[in-house]
């Protein structure tokens, strides 16, 4: 059949022509076609059609086996360029990964060969691929799996060849090896190193997640699939609404990625933040899992909640997730800053994120400050106020004492008069202070009274403070004592900078005069630790208060009396700091030691004892021991109830106790305590105070978990009113409110609204993240 052989010849010539490089085609065709012009015309027109950029028919979605999920049948032994497939390693949204080796036997090394799933219309894939390969091949770093090669297989399947990493995903690795928080952080720092290096080379990963961070048996993390997401993200394809086109994992994807907006290095910062949170959480969650009573709750500590301590929700058909996210406030702050909604508000670079983690490990102040001054003041200053009363009276006594001494020395009448006047004045001021400051309850005189009193104290301090340096230059002991007292007074007014200035001055003097092991020095150290805490320097505060405690211990060993109370207070402060840093075992120990010191049965001591118990209860809660936490907190509440002067402390403790009870599912009791707490804080601290708003919020929360959604919404609405009035722009409150609203909406079947609400919650690290659909 002449036609058949003609056609066969056409096909043969065509096939051979394709094998030749383009430049040589003409020459080849002349030779192969001889004088057959018709044949040559046919072949040339076919070649021209073949050379067109887009083919009308292309093979549709290939890699059938990868879609169906069966073992890479059909791929074993298959050749891809210079490599031969050995077996399948895994499969993901972007394709399948195989273990492969060099087919030509050139190198022994096994490699990972990733076959990329290409979708029908993605015609520019190979071109982009080639461009990116150049850049990626240049990435050479300890923590990055190298891209070795790539190409297009015979079926038109693009493939990548990478360094084969025999390791496990970083989260599994941490769990399997039971790594401590510090070890996890150090591992995380190595990951950051890799990412930072790539950023320097202008490569953004875009798909950072645990399965892309493998840790070798020797403990080295290696990043995979760097820049792959970019290769596979065809800009040509306008909107990508189909799931399989998505080249990232929802939880780890930054908001701008989900929205399809341009992606920068900030997206990687976000993903690293989520990774950090999950690495830290896994450890914390494990603690709670051991406790069979625990129900899901991630609500924060006594008076306030940091944004990332969010309530959890049931997942996958009712199975509760242990959502106890208790790790220290500084780490929470770091996570929050890395995972801010707006890219511009995150860490500007991965290096800065890593730097903050390093600073945290070194006990230095970190850059991320998510918890506000109000929060810290509420937490730490209250305790100091009672110390300030005594201290202020000491000031006056000293002033009066100077005058008295001068007077007693029998000086000239004029000076005697002056001295008497000074003493009288001192006595008047002393009397004023006694009445005004005799309550440790700051709300005793009502709010207007508060402001007036505060104004008066501030005025006094500002008047007296500058004079100390000049007027007492020749009396270093008195000067140091006064500076210390003034510093404490400033601290009580939350004027942190002024407080630290004077406390540091006092400390300098006292160290010179007495050395570290001295009651005065210790007192100043404790106050200074308080100031550092207010500033947010938890690491520094911990170091300072430890010095104070050590000094007290030494003094007591030497037989010094009467130091139990100041040492106990220092231990209480230490416990607070440790709790904030997430070191719950240590905080429990600190409170416990403090409790043993508290001498009973004076009223003031019982208040201190109750405070210790509250601290112990909070520590137990964070350790996951809900039963003990509840009973300790109940004891604290009972103590506070019996002391009118300590009533203001009651609200915070009631809030926390209710939280524990809610966590145990004892909703009714929790709500009863919260209603009491609401009344107490309204009475003691006013409706604009943090504990008051907090008790409203917690009521909403308990009601939601109890299933009383309408009531919960009402309570949440009330809380929101106070939040917007008193704490506008406070990210923590915003996050809590939004997240709880989201939960209520979701549970009442208004899921779409719920997701939108939760997504609005700032810094939620993806907990409110849902796929844009």
């Amino acid at each position, binding site marked *: 059949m002449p036609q058949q052989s003609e056609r066969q010849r056409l096909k043969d010539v*065509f096939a051979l022509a394709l094998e030749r490089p383009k430049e040589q085609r003409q020459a080849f065709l002349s030779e192969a076609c001889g004088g057959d012009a018709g044949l040559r015309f046919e072949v040339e027109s076919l070649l*021209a059609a073949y050379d067109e950029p887009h083919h009308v028919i292309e093979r*549709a979605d290939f890699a*059938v086996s990868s879609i169906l999920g069966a073992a890479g049948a059909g791929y074993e032994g298959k050749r891809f360029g210079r490599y031969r497939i050995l077996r399948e390693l895994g499969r993901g949204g972007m394709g399948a990964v195989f273990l492969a080796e060099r087919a030509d036997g050139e190198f022994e090394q096994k490699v990972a060969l990733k076959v990329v799933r290409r979708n*029908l219309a993605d015609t520019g894939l190979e071109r982009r691929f080639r461009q990116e390969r150049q850049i990626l091949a240049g990435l050479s770093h300890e923590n990055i799996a190298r891209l070795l090669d790539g190409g297009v297989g015979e079926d038109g399947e693009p493939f990548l060849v990478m360094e084969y990493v025999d390791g496990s995903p970083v989260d599994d690795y941490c769990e399997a090896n039971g790594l401590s928080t510090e070890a996890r952080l150090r591992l995380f720092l190595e990951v950051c190193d890799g990412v930072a290096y790539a950023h320097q080379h202008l490569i953004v990963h875009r798909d950072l997640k645990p399965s892309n961070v493998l840790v070798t048996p020797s403990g080295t993390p290696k990043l995979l699939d760097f820049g792959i997401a970019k290769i596979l993200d065809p800009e040509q*394809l306008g909107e990508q609404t189909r799931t399989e086109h998505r080249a990232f994992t929802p939880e780890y994807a930054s908001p701008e990625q989900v929205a399809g907006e341009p992606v920068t290095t900030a997206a990687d910062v976000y993903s690293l933040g989520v990774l950090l949170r999950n690495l830290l959480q896994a450890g914390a969650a494990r603690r709670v899992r051991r406790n069979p009573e625990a129900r899901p709750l991630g609500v924060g500590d006594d008076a306030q909640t940091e944004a990332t301590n969010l309530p959890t929700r049931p997942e996958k058909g009712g199975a509760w997730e242990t959502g106890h996210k208790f790790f220290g406030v500084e780490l929470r702050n770091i996570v929050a800053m890395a995972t801010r909604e707006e890219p511009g508000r995150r860490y500007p670079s991965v290096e800065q994120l890593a730097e903050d983690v390093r600073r945290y490990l070194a006990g230095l102040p970190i850059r991320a400050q998510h918890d506000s001054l109000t929060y810290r003041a509420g937490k730490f200053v209250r305790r100091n106020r009672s110390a300030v009363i005594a201290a202020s009276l000491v000031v006056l006594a000293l002033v009066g004492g100077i005058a008295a001494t001068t007077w007693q020395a029998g000086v000239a009448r004029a000076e005697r008069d002056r001295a008497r006047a000074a003493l009288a004045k001192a006595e008047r001021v002393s009397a004023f202070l006694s009445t005004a400051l005799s309550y440790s309850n700051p709300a005793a005189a009502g709010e207007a009274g508060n402001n007036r009193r505060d104004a008066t104290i501030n005025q006094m301090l500002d008047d007296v403070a500058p004079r100390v340096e000049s007027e007492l230059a020749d009396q270093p002991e008195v000067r140091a004592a006064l500076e210390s007292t003034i510093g404490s007074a400033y601290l009580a007014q939350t004027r942190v900078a002024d407080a630290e200035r004077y406390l540091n001055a006092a400390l300098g003097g006292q160290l010179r005069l007495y050395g570290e092991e001295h009651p005065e020095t210790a007192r100043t150290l404790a106050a200074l630790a308080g100031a550092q805490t207010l500033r947010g320097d938890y690491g520094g505060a911990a170091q300072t208060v430890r010095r104070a405690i050590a000094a007290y211990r030494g003094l007591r060993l030497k037989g010094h009396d009467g130091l139990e109370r100041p040492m106990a207070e220092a231990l209480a402060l230490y416990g607070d700091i440790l709790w904030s840093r997430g070191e719950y075992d240590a905080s429990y120990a600190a409170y416990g030691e403090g409790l043993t010191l508290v001498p009973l049965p004076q009223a003031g001591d019982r208040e201190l004892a109750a405070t210790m118990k509250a601290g112990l209860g909070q520590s137990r809660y964070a350790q996951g021991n809900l039963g003990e936490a509840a009973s300790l907190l109940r004891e604290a509440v009972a103590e506070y109830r019996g002391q009118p002067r300590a009533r203001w402390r009651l609200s915070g403790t009631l809030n926390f106790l209710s939280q524990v009870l809610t966590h145990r599912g004892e909703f009714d009791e929790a709500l009863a305590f919260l209603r009491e707490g609401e009344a107490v804080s309204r009475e003691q601290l006013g409706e604009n105070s943090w504990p008051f708003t907090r008790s409203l919020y917690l009521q909403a929360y308990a009601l939601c978990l109890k299933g009383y959604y309408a009531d919960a919404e009402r309570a949440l609405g009330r809380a929101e009113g106070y939040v917007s009035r008193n704490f506008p722009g406070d990210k923590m409150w915003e996050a809590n409110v939004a997240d709880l609203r989201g939960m209520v909406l979701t549970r009442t079947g208004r899921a779409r609204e719920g997701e939108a609400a939760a997504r609005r919650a700032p810094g939620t690290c993806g907990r409110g993240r849902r796929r844009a659909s």
Partner: protein
Amino acid sequence: MPRPEEVTLLLNSASGGDPAAPGRLLELVYDDLRRLAAAYLKNERNAQTLQPTALVHEAFVRLVDWQNVSWQSRAHFFAAAAKVMRHVLVDHARSKRAQKRDFGQRIALADAVSYPSGREFDLLALEEALLSLERVDERQARVVELRFFGGLTIREAAHVLGVSETTVKNEWEFAKAWFQRELTRGS
């Protein structure tokens, strides 16, 4: 709906070389595939972004106990399904064109099946070209049918047709060029 075991058995025997198996297999699954395809196409959105092979995969998952099936057997299934797919799609395109004619609309881009990229694709023109190719070069036409409608790899197609992979590759490359020329002529 045939029992999965039946289909699996047939697939395996087809793979084992039983010449009658593919035909019986086709009979068995034809109706179901048509039904599946029809249901799939009823959804307007699906019809807009049609991917033939996705549909075949769906069918495969439902009809076959595919965990226990070798890739060779799967290849046979897809080969059979490719035919069905082709018929279904062409029928659908024809009926759409008829509708458009009835409403007096221009046929310029009639019966176009659009792909995710938004490129319009004239399926009926492809079908005509494929029919004429079948008359002239049956094996090459079969390769096109297998790969375009069935989504088979070169290796799978080679197995089904009983030829070498190189042969399949050559046929495919030629066909691409040929269709390119045929379908863009005059445009």
